[in-house]
């Protein structure tokens, strides 16, 4: 029992269970019908939250994920007009990796705090997205909408949306990477104490660069996925995502100071936020309640976890 409470994900699991029970009873079971749309919402934000969680484990933070998400969609749509869907997807994902590489380069080489670098990147890519969409939106050309790859993202396997499946696969892979591979333990070492990691022969710069690229890449994956599903990208796509993913990562057991983190905890955190959104709508509450609840839950979590830390002595 004690080892369960000590896990950083303990509080989010309890909260998700309580929330599901609350909505299931409160709406007399109607809530379960909305589960597919809640899961779709979870998939979009969850993939990005995984990246944010990895970066936060390494002791850095990415405020540009929302803008990266949007601009990858813009690149994807613009590229597919020239070269077809599959190469465009490769180009778009490659572009998102470049975004991460640039963040990493400036942050590591010039020793600029990642918060500032990614804040700047957030402005830059948002500006380009606005320019490219001329303030409104751009869409996939009609003749390409029936392309196999686009339809693949809309497809359902075993009654589950493809995006949900993708989220599950990515969660499993990255949870494995964080827990069982050399990169994963190096990442936690660097996040915990960069100086002693360096003293033990782990290069913080290199590990952090990988984490930055991974984070932007995952934001790009979500961007491509959402464009394929919804067919268009807006000037305002992905705004506030940086705040929501950070909130989800913290709720899911990541530490703001780095060094310890979780992959499936943040995904559960996103699930919690999404089911809150869906559940409140079903119960007839105004949508604005959702935002206020997110804030209240975040603050509640922070206080709770700081108290838990004292009681059980867990390393959070």
């Amino acid at each position, binding site marked *: 029992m004690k080892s369960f409470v000590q896990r950083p994900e303990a509080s989010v699991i309890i909260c998700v269970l309580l929330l599901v029970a609350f909505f299931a009873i409160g709406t007399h079971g109607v809530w379960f019908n909305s589960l597919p749309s809640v899961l779709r919402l979870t998939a979009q934000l969850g993939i990005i939250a995984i990246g944010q969680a990895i970066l936060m484990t390494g002791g850095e933070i990415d405020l540009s994920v929302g803008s990266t998400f949007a601009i990858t969609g813009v690149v994807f749509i613009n590229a597919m007009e020239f070269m077809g869907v599959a190469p465009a997807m490769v180009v778009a994902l490659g572009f998102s990796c470049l975004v991460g590489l640039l963040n990493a380069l400036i942050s590591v080489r010039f020793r*600029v*705090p990642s918060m500032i670098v990614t804040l700047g990147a957030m402005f*830059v890519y948002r*500006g380009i997205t606005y320019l490219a969409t001329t303030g409104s939106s751009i869409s996939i050309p009609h003749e390409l909408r029936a392309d196999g790859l686009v339809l693949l993202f809309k497809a359902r396997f075993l009654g589950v949306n493809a995006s949900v499946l993708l989220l599950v696969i990515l969660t499993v892979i990255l949870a494995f990477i964080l827990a069982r591979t050399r990169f994963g333990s190096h990442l936690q070492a660097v996040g915990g104490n960069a100086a002693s990691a360096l003293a033990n022969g782990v290069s913080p710069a290199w590990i952090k660069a990988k984490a930055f690229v991974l984070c932007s890449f995952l934001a790009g994956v979500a961007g491509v996925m959402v464009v394929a599903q919804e067919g268009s990208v807006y000037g305002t796509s992905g705004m506030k995502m940086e705040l929501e993913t950070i909130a989800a990562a*913290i709720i899911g057991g990541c530490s703001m*100071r780095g060094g310890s983190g979780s992959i499936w905890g943040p995904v559960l955190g996103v699930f919690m936020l999404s089911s809150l959104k869906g559940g409140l709508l079903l119960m007839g509450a105004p949508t*604005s309640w959702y935002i206020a609840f997110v804030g209240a839950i975040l*603050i509640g979590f922070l206080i709770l976890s700081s*108290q838990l830390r004292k009681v059980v002595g867990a390393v959070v």
Partner: protein
Amino acid sequence: MIGSLLRRQEFAVVVCLTLLMLYFAIITGEAWAANLPSLLRDVSWLGIVVIGQAIVIISGEFDLSVGSVYAFVSMVFLMLLQASVGPYFAFILSLGLGALIGFLNGYLTWRFRIPSLLVTLGFLFVYRGLVEYVTGGQTLIIPTDIQQSSLIQFLGGKFLGLHISIYLCAALLAFFIFTMSKTQYGNHVYAVGGDLNAATATGVPCGAVKVRTFMISSMLAGFTGIITACSLNSVSTTTGTAMEFEAIAATVIGGVALLGGAGTVWGAVLGVFTLLSLKHGLILDGVNIFTYQLLLGIVLVSLVALRGLLPNSYVRT
């Protein structure tokens, strides 16, 4: 003399601002001069918020909730007016609310040792949600009979062709420059932000200092909200969104160290000036306004990166 000027963190922003203003003054000519009062008004609005943000960042913390507090306090001010509470009483109550919000931010940060970035992120959501819930997407308007009240006429009015908010910003700036450089409290803020353990060891009441910086920040954000409400006679749901990012960008451009302990209030306000000269200049120049965000990002990152490369940069950024 010149050497010490060059070494100052604010040097970059002074150069940047001068060049920007020269550039746009030459490009757009008379239109630039005619636009100056409205530029100054916008600078004073964001500037008052940034004074608070700069003090919080110097003390080693962040306040992401300023945009939401700005909207929330001005909304409460308007609701009090609509409930026919007298304008002066409503003003005092709203400022008190700002102080309370700041106290909560600071208390939770200090008492539970939670990073302030996260506490204020939480409150950003909470107050924005409340604003959206109460306004329901509508714009609140000050009742016409109350619009004539002396306080609202004063706060939203002009003096010698310039908005009152400009004089208020200048007065607050002067007050906080004095506070930060000449008083014990200012000294404590730098000490707490520079090295918390050393400050504690030398007997600085760190908790009280931090809580007070948060109270100042929230009160100033709320005060700006009230001024803009008086000036525009209304508050809309989306007012102040993304303000926290602009405030942090301006503060950092103005040479305040992101990890605390160094920087000045006037540098941060110059940062606001730079940011908004760029925005207004681009609009006057007929450049697509979306370019502004792009340039802002580049200016922000390159200034901070440059500072890291320059020799003598003994100050942490």
